[in-house]
């Protein structure tokens, strides 16, 4: 759901942005340009207002100057008019003019020669002089003069001056008028009506003092509005006053856009050297609302429109996104269900567009997949059954089976292994086998590479050793036969080695116990047997009385028996010693022939008795061998004795010795009963007596061959035989000659 919302949101954001961003950009640009064009308009308007004000005031001034010109004409030096008449006319002009408060006529020296005032009675002593007055000098120079606005007794005035020319145009005096300056406030009041309230137009002089304002109080109070940015610009830099100031809040608390425009009123006197201009500035304040009002409302409208567009886009996006994302959501649900294992789930999308195609292909894939999964499941069940079977089998096997992987970590550890090592499978799985099992051959530890090599060139058994030692987890010693094999590395097979341990501890212990018993028994028997032998021999020696023949026979028999028993005991002791590893040889280099000959000499009588022919073939050039004479003699005599024993009368026993390469082979062949083939394997084992031998001759300990083999092998030689039942047997001892 969350993921789907993201897609949804993406759609909405995208569509909204696509619709909104261009709109906002266009609106923004338009607004900025609109704003700047409005500002231009305002600036232009301000300019126009200033121009209008200037024009009107100029017109006024010109009209006043017109009047002054009339008066000047009256006082033209060449104009014949009586002063008293001129005075009367002056009064008429004064009274009939609307704006003149005072008119004064001065002569070339500046002396007032006539004066009329609207309010004051002018007596001759009230006539003063304009000499040295700025106005007079100005008129002399430029022919015209307009003085600054000043307030006197609650009214604003300014002074005008006009030169009286003579017929040559030279300076012949001047006319000065005190003019009511209320024309200016009324002009700006009218012009202020052009701007929307609370906008206003007013005029300041270069010091920022209001000289005309729709509210006369400002003028009368001579308010200084230098604090307003528009006026401040004028005061600070009168020469560069024409500029549009930024919006500010004026002293009445209104937000306005102010502009300052210098008033240029040029008053020409044709003969003047330069036009006199006036340092006044028209300040036009337009209310910010009305200047930017339209822009503001447009801006708001744009905002509203943009928001509407956003909402429309969002609505469309929501609708559209839903239409697109719902099938995707359905698909997503399908995959989720699939992931949960619900393989029968099919996406339900019927649209004909790519998403529909996707859904259909998904369904097809789902079909295939579900079939595959079903068959895989079936296979898995089979495999699982097999695995279980294997596990059961393994549990049942009495031998310990341990399998390791390529890194020689234990991956299989059956029940028998648990019993052998006194560890639990769970505790050893995954552990290196070297940590769990240590095998000793005698006292030497068997390296792991021997019984579980990392690499094996052959598949199959790599190690097969019997009677190895190991300790279980409790510290108890165990004797095992170890067979280990490698499974050749395949692609998917992780087995490394499989080791089988046959726990022969009990058998081993039993063997040892048996051996020890035999040894002890034999030792124990020896003494009495020696005694018995001595006793019987003593008896036979007739040292203690004569024996008759029958008694002698009996005693011989007894002595034979005793000797046989002694042999047996000796054999047992030998065997015991062999088994304990105490049966060593002392080798001395000597010829072998004499030993054999000696044996044969001793066996001659026995052979004759049994009517068996003894043949001997011993070449004289046999090399000397390293022999323990007693022991090798035992081996040879055992073979020869057996040969004689198991050959029936009339048979033959042939003793041969020959040199074969660096070896000396001594063979004893007979034509005796032979050994059945099935018993070949056990011929050299302890207590072996062939059935045939047993049925033929009940004597024999069965130990002779065992000991003989041991003796031969200790000499570094080999003992072997061939035999055929009822035909004969040949035993061969081969000994290698020492290197010269």
């Amino acid at each position, binding site marked *: 759901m969350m993921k789907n919302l993201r897609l949804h949101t993406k759609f909405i954001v995208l569509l909204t942005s696509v619709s909104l961003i261009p709109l906002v950009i266009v609106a923004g640009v338009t607004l900025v340009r609109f704003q700047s064009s409005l500002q231009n308009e305002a600036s232009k308007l301000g300019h126009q207002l200033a121009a209008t004000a200037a024009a009107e005031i100029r017109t006024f001034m010109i009209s006043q100057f017109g009047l002054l010109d009339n008066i000047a004409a009256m006082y033209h030096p060449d104009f014949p008019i009586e002063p008293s008449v001129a005075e009367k006319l002056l009064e008429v002009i004064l009274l009939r003019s609307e704006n003149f408060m005072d008119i004064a006529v001065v002569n070339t020296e500046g002396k007032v020669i006539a004066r009329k005032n609207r309010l004051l009675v002018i007596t001759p002593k009230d006539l003063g002089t304009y000499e040295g007055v700025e106005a007079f000098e100005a008129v002399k120079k430029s022919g015209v003069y307009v003085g600054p606005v000043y307030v006197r007794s609650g*009214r604003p005035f300014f002074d005008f001056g006009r030169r009286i020319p003579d017929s040559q145009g030279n300076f012949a005096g001047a006319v000065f008028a005190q003019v009511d300056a*209320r024309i200016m406030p009324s002009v700006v009041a009218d012009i202020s009506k052009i701007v929307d309230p609370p906008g206003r137009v007013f005029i300041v002089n270069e010091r920022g003092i209001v000289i005309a304002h729709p509210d*006369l109080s400002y003028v*009368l*109070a001579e308010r200084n509005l230098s604090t307003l940015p528009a006026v401040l610009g004028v005061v600070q830099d009168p020469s560069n006053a024409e500029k549009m100031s930024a919006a500010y809040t004026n002293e009445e608390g209104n937000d306005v856009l102010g502009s300052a425009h210098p008033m240029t009123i040029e008053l020409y006197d044709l003969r003047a050297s330069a036009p006199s201009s006036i340092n006044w500035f028209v300040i036009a304040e337009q209310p910010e609302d009305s200047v930017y009002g339209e822009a503001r409302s447009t801006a708001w409208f744009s905002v509203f429109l943009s928001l509407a567009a956003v909402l429309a886009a969002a609505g469309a996006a929501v609708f559209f996104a839903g239409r697109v994302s719902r099938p995707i*959501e359905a698909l997503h649900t399908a995959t989720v269900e699939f992931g949960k294992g619900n393989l029968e789930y099919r996406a339900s999308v019927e649209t004909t567009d790519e998403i529909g195609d996707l859904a259909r292909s998904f369904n097809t894939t789902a079909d295939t997949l579900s079939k595959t999964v079903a068959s895989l499941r079936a296979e898995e069940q089979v495999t699982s059954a097999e695995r279980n079977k294997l596990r059961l089998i393994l549990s049942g096997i009495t031998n310990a089976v341990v399998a390791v992987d390529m890194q020689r970590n234990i991956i299989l550890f059956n029940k028998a292994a648990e019993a052998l090592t006194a560890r639990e499978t769970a505790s050893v799985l995954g552990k290196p086998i070297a940590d769990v099992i240590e095998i000793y051959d005698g006292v030497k530890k068997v390296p792991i590479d021997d019984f579980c090599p990392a690499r094996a060139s052959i598949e199959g058994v790599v190690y097969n050793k019997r009677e190895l030692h190991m300790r279980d987890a409790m510290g108890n010693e165990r004797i095992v036969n170890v067979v280990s094999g490698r499974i050749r590395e395949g692609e998917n097979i992780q087995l490394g080695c499989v080791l089988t341990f046959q726990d022969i501890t009990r058998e081993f212990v039993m063997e040892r116990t048996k051996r020890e018993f035999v040894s002890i028994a034999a030792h124990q028997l020896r003494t009495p047997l020696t005694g018995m032998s001595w006793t019987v021999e003593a008896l036979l020696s007739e040292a203690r009385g004569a024996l008759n023949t029958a008694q002698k026979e009996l005693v011989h028999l007894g002595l034979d028996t005793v000797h046989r028993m002694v042999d047996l005991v000796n054999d047992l002791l030998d065997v015991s010693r062999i088994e304990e590893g105490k049966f060593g040889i002392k080798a001395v280099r000597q010829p072998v022939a004499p030993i054999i000959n000696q044996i044969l000499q001793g066996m001659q009588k026995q052979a004759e008795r049994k009517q068996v022919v003894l043949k001997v073939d011993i070449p004289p050039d046999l090399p000397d061998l390293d022999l323990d004479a007693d022991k090798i003699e035992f081996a040879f005599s055992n073979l020869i004795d057996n040969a004689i024993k198991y050959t029936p009368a009339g048979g033959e026993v042939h003793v041969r010795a020959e040199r074969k390469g660096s070896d000396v082979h001594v063979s004893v062949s007979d034509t005796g009963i032979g050994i059945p083939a099935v018993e070949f394997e056990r011929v050299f084992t302890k207590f072996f007596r062939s059935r045939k031998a047993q049925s033929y001759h009940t004597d024999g300990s069965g130990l002779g061959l065992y000991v003989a083999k041991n003796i031969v092998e200790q000499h570094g030689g080999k003992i072997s035989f061939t035999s055929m039942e009822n035909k004969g047997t040949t035993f061969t001892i081969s000994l290698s000659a020492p290197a010269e």
Partner: protein
Amino acid sequence: MADVHAEHSKRHFVFVAICAIFVFVLCALVFAYFLTNRPVQEATQSHTVVVVRNPPALDATWDMTRAELRDLGYIEGENIEYVITEVSNDLETTKSRIAPLLGDSIDLVLTFGVLATRAAKEATEGSGSSVPIVFAVVSDPVGGGLVRSMQSSGNNLTGITPANEFAASKRLEFLKSLLPGAKRIISAWNDERTSGVDGLRRIAPGLGLELIDEQVADVASMVAFLDTFPYKRGDAILRASDSIGAGALSRVIETAVRERVPLIGTNSGDTARGALMSYGADYAPISARAARMIDQIFNGTAPSDIPIEEASDFDLAVNTDTATKIGVTIPQSFLIKVRYVYPTE
């Protein structure tokens, strides 16, 4: 599966609902903005003005002021109330008429003439009130001690002065120019300052005129004096430019006509009523100015921030009917100086 869809639909609905609410709120805001952005007429509260008339001379001025206020948007009964009283004979009585009318609900006092103004000033001072006082037609307010200076009163007064303290002398000059045969000027005055009697005394001899001035206490005395004065040829009456003179106007006009004595008034209104001639400030602009001052004060400006103004239009007026009645011929050379000729055709 149905669960998922239901969840989705619910979310959809919630989203759309939120959008709708948003749109609605936005529209409301926009609407409200546009509404409030229209220039709204200031809520007009009602103002109460105490008017101290000075009939008959200054009633014309009062009418003009009232008309001007109406033009400025103050409709009687809607947003302005006038409590009208008039001056009495003297200062104390006038004060006693004004004082009871003052109260918390009074927004302004409008006075005509110096007597009314002085009475109002003292009445408000006495009650400790600082209610603004606007005076129309009070000459020499600084000299009269009503205000500190022309630029700022320094108190709760402001208004317009017709500068009669100067005009008074000028009147003599014009009289002499109209009637060169004039010899004596009779003037009964009450207020030394506004009547400009000082100037009269200075100027008269220079014009060859003998000034006979008499201070009177009230209208009755003024009338009595002028009524019983022994007039001879070459006499002229100069109406005092103070409140008593204004109050006594009708009676004085009667006397002048009866005695066939030229009467010089202070403004064209006097001439319209029957004075032979007058020279002085035009009262119409004064009324307009006063109305505007009242408007300013109602909008929050303090009286001391409104400089006192001087009237600007000083004009000659003559009454040809009166001239005929008293046997005076007005020459053309004088007429061309005249602004207002009564009776108007």
